[in-house]
């Protein structure tokens, strides 16, 4: 009995010490948090929107749209106050005014939203990555004073160590995953802008009296990115990436993401497709059209669109998505909707060829397995196949030794055209080594096998 009592007492004490740190990390009440969002830039000297992208969609327009959507998401999550340094694209707000607003309101976090750029001679079409800047602590070069001077060189550590460095990494990771672009990570501003030989501290970070970050979401000088930036829901995805970062930083459990987005392309040309109707969960999303969207900026008639589709607040589970475009086969995909992050699914639509070959429009005549694309690939590749009849279908990944690596599908399907994605993981969820793999489709007694290359 005495032993039990002692054991219970020890368990209680251990429990207290074990539970307490966890509670301290997760017990931030967002009603005690206020945030200032700073949509970067505004009007240029000539009165136009500043920092035009490859096709004219500007950083000014992009950052305000993201900030407004992020404000709404944060408020819905219970953040006490969210203020914006500008609420229209026609205002010109100085850097000192932006931080003055944050300091006056005494907010807990200042975040400046930007989009990156490279000059023409650095080949903008090849440059696109995510990065978040934070203030670097500088050396105290004047030892006469007990007050830290912030006058010297960079020290290689964050000014707001333990807060802005953590937040910057979260934001950069989430933006890179959302836009599916490389991640340059969290960068200290003084070193990034030239280091000891002439770096500088970003104006909005230097004068703010609270932890602060500045995200460079992606490159508006990249033509593909700039076309995607024109899609409001694509910008919303960045807002959501930042929103997730805030919730994670403050240790607040976020609701299931359950958002599916991707790009619809023409299978033959690889070009993103305009005016595609995407149906899921009883809703319809239409990809941007030239006259509704791209015509508003400097997108030439011949340029392709962005092909972006986006569904949020989806139910859990495997949801059928149907893609329809004039002159293309209807394509239905079953997409497993993830709770923890965005679910990405790119889709390639196949043109309807001569009825004499196919028979009834859109109905495949033969059992087929297409070459995966892209190939070689990293991190994901799309595998498309057609079924002439309903039945059991199994799609399996094999290594060079013929050993089964992963099973992508093993279920009953109706006749039709399908696509599925392999993300280079095996049955245990681990990334497989680089190399040649086979994918084998079996339906009834028919089997087709093709080869692909995974590059890590």
């Amino acid at each position, binding site marked *: 009995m005495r032993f039990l009592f002692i054991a219970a007492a020890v368990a209680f004490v251990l429990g207290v010490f074990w539970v307490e740190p966890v509670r301290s990390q997760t017990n931030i009440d967002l009603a005690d*948090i206020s945030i200032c969002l700073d949509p970067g*830039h505004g009007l240029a000297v000539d009165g136009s929107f500043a920092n035009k992208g490859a096709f004219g969609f500007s950083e000014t327009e992009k950052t305000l749209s993201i900030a407004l959507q992020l404000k709404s998401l944060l408020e819905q999550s219970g953040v006490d106050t969210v203020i914006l340094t500008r609420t229209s694209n026609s205002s010109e*707000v*100085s850097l*000192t005014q932006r931080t003055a607003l944050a300091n006056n309101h005494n907010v807990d976090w200042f975040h400046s939203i930007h989009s990156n750029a490279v000059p023409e001679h650095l080949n903008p079409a090849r440059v696109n990555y995510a990065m978040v800047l934070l203030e670097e602590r500088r050396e105290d070069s004047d030892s*006469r004073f007990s007050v830290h001077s*912030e006058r010297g060189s960079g020290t290689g550590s964050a000014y707001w160590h333990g807060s802005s460095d953590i937040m910057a990494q979260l934001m950069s990771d989430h933006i890179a995953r959302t836009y599916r672009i490389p991640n340059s990570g969290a960068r200290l501003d003084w070193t990034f802008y030239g280091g000891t030989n002439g770096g*500088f501290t*970003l*104006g909005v970070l230097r004068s703010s009296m609270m932890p602060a970050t500045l995200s460079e979401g992606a490159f508006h000088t990249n033509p593909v990115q700039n076309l995607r930036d024109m899609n409001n829901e694509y910008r919303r995805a960045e807002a959501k990436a930042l929103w997730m970062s805030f919730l994670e930083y403050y240790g607040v459990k976020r609701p299931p993401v359950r958002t599916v987005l991707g790009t619809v392309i023409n299978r033959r040309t690889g070009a993103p497709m305009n005016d595609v109707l995407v149906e899921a969960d009883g809703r319809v999303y239409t990809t941007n059209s030239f006259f509704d969207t791209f015509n508003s900026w400097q997108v030439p008639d011949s340029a392709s669109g962005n092909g972006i589709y986006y569904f949020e607040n989806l139910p859990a589970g495997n949801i059928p998505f149907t893609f329809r475009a004039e002159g293309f086969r209807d394509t239905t995909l079953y997409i497993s909707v993830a709770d923890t992050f965005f679910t990405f699914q790119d889709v390639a639509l196949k043109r309807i060829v001569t009825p004499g070959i196919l028979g009834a429009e859109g109905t495949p005549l033969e059992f087929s397995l297409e070459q995966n694309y892209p190939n070689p690939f990293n991190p994901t590749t799309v595998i498309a196949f057609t079924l002439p009849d309903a039945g059991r279908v199994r799609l399996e990944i094999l290594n060079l030794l013929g050993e089964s690596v992963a099973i992508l599908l093993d279920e009953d399907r109706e006749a039709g055209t399908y696509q599925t994605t392999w993300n280079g993981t095996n049955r245990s969820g681990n990334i497989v080594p680089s190399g040649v793999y086979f994918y084998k489709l079996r339906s009834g007694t028919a089997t087709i096998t093709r080869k692909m290359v995974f590059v890590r």
Partner: protein
Amino acid sequence: MTRTLTIRLFTFTVLVMCWTATIRAQNVRIVSPPERLPLPFASVAKISPTGEYISFSGERFNKLFISNTEGSSYSELCSHAAAGWGHTWSPDGQFIALRANHHEEKTKRVAVEMIDVANKIALPVTDWLSSRARLSLPEWSATNVFSYSTSSGIQVRRAEIDDSTVTIATVEPGQISLRLWSVDALEVRDGMKLQAVRPFRQSRQVLSSAWSPERNISAVEFSGRPSLYVVSEDGKTPHLVDAKGEYPCWINDRYVVYMVTEDDGYKILSGDIWIADKDGKMKKKLTEGLNEIALYPSASKDGTIVFTTESGSVYKMKVAVE
């Protein structure tokens, strides 16, 4: 013939305008140019209205110090974070009201304090409140009366001196008339009557404001450009002083001192201190030739102007105005 006459008339008009501008500019004379004071890094510095002291805060507006006007000796008044941002001298120079932060893990507590300058004593005005209390910066409205707002409304306090002991008394809203710039409007409180006046049809955020010594006009900086206006006592007639003016203060009832910055969206490229008459017709740059980014000016009645630079130096200069 008519054309020649028109040209002559036009030339004459231009000459008269130039001459008038020159005469107006001559009304402001730099008595002593900017001189760097031997003070530590300061993010903001303010000269007391009477010109006796300089208050300044360290990096990131943390702490608050007081120095003589030569900068040769200084001492700490307040050790709290963010105490320097928006700290404000009472019109008689006896007190400083400020809002300070106490950081906790990912959150903070906020409080208003008042400092008895002569005795260098900080007196608590509020408890340490959570952010949701929405504690505003304090503002002096009469010699010994200051106010601040919380989520539950405006609070008014009076600093009282009795046998060299300073106390802070609560003033009921009905006992005093107040004119306070809130987020985007002038709140006029006359006893229990409250009226909010927006100078512009559309809402514009007020970033900083300063009442003239006689308190009959106010210099107000609105977010975005054009930014700096002089607004009448009733808040209804804004008059543009400088489209790029920020952070105003008054030397007397006619001249307003402020800063103008230029940036490229990433870093501040230039910053200068300017003086203008209340009509905005005469403007003069006071930091011409100073090879630093000058920020956050303050002025005393005798024409002394104190400002900081982006690199943390404190400068003092003096102007004479007619």
